[in-house]
């Protein structure tokens, strides 16, 4: 997957976790925590959704990379490079 495809995957995961949230105006450089009030339970869910969908393992001390959309995509690019997009 390329970065655009990964971004769509993350958007899809966010939409599933917070279906009432309007994500069309999401700012890629502002923390999810600030924009959507995501808490540690939600971040754990993002990690678990990635594991469920793409079998990627994210170690606990690297959760910090998932702070914003930009940092998340950047972090996942090498991990998902060889994975086919499901979209």
């Amino acid at each position, binding site marked *: 997957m390329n970065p655009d495809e990964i971004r769509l995957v993350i958007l899809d995961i966010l939409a*599933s*976790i*917070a*279906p*009432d*949230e309007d994500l069309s105006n999401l700012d890629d450089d502002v923390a999810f925590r600030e924009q*959507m*009030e995501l*808490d540690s*339970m*939600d971040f*754990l*869910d993002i990690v*678990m959704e990635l594991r*469920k969908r793409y079998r990627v393992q994210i170690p606990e001390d690297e959760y910090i990379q998932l702070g914003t959309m930009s940092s998340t995509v950047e972090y996942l690019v090498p991990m998902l490079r060889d994975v086919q997009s499901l979209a």
Partner: protein
Amino acid sequence: MSYDTIIIGAGLSGLAAGIRLAHFEKRVCVLERHTTIGGLNSFYRLRKHNHDVGLHAVTNYAPPGTRTGPLSKLLRQLRLRWDDFDLVPQVESSVVFPNRTLRFTNDFEFLKQQVAEQFPGQADNFQKLLGHIDAHDELDLFQRETSAREVLNGCISDPLLIDMLLCPLMFYGSPTPHDMDFTQFVIMFKSIFYEGFGRPFHGVRQIMKQVVRKFKSLGGELKLRAGVREIVTDNGRAVGVILDDGQELAGENVVSSAGSAETLQLCPGDVPDNKADYTPGEISFVETISMLDRHPSELPHHETIVFYNHADAFHYECPDEPVDLRSGIICSPNNFQYDEPLEEGRIRITALANPACWMDLPEEEYVAQKARCFDEIAESAVKVMPEFRDFTVDTDVFTPRTIRKFTGHTNGCVYGAPHKLRDGRTHLENLYICGTDQGFLGIVGSMLSGITIANRYLLK
């Protein structure tokens, strides 16, 4: 067939745990002895009327768009939308004691004003109490048990205000008489006073339906009429269960929402060192349901919930008599801010009851006692609300015996054991407790309980 997790009880906590596990591809089966789902929050139909059991109001109300707090946490964890529960906020509720009334709504500032008006000398003390409440992390699973009355006495100098604050919180969640664990107090205080009451137009059915549909859509298995007779153990581990009909199911983990003492009884020969922690509760209730030929607002009665007490002090305890007529809860499911009125008018009145006075009565005496208590409870309630008895078209009553029959709770206790197993661990390393005896309370709390146990131990 072997499951990753077997869950005992298809109430809200068990089903919520099941949703989390099924969503993350675990093989999970929820077992329910009763013919329908719900446990302590169920529903039934009698003579063409739909009734709710348990739920008077959903606590932890939050309006749509709220991103923090227990309700939004719950919705995200279960991948549900706010509209799925579609909670309608209350009108107004009150705590009514002799010569003093405290009114409250879902706007906490209103209660603060009420305290300042009704107890002019206590406004600063009340603020001090709020400081203690805000500083307490009630979701920490390792909080030590402390006395809520001790904290209250340290802040508030008028015993009447202390009793009036405790009254609704105890009635809606305390498994212990006279006092509450402070953590439980904080959970209840926030869920009732900070957040408030809501109710779906269709009552608890709406919530149960969404939750069970979600569970099944994720591939979760639900077996009704499948009571667990025994938890099979091997070397300090649970390895499966035996059902009432003798069928055996194997599981890697077992989660039980049956209650701590009730769960222990399912484990043959196992006596944990902390057996005293598994003592069942004794707080139970009788509830009368009156179907009216008009809406409560026409009586006129506009309040959502009235917590009343006729005595000088509030006595939250197991009474000596079948029911305690000194206090009670009046719930009018009609009095929420619906767009259109509910079809039928209804008044539910709940009072503390002594389980021992109900359990072993011969059928004839049981029926007679139910009828007698119905009249006495109504007589006690009309001291604080308009006369409604002449407009009654149908009635029903449930007692501690009814609760025991349908939930399996010893003594028909509603809020479970006095000691909560907050971290969900038991004497067996892979047997966990969720629901009432884990200790998160209310409709939202019960689901968060199942979610917490699933996340912490079964999804790592």
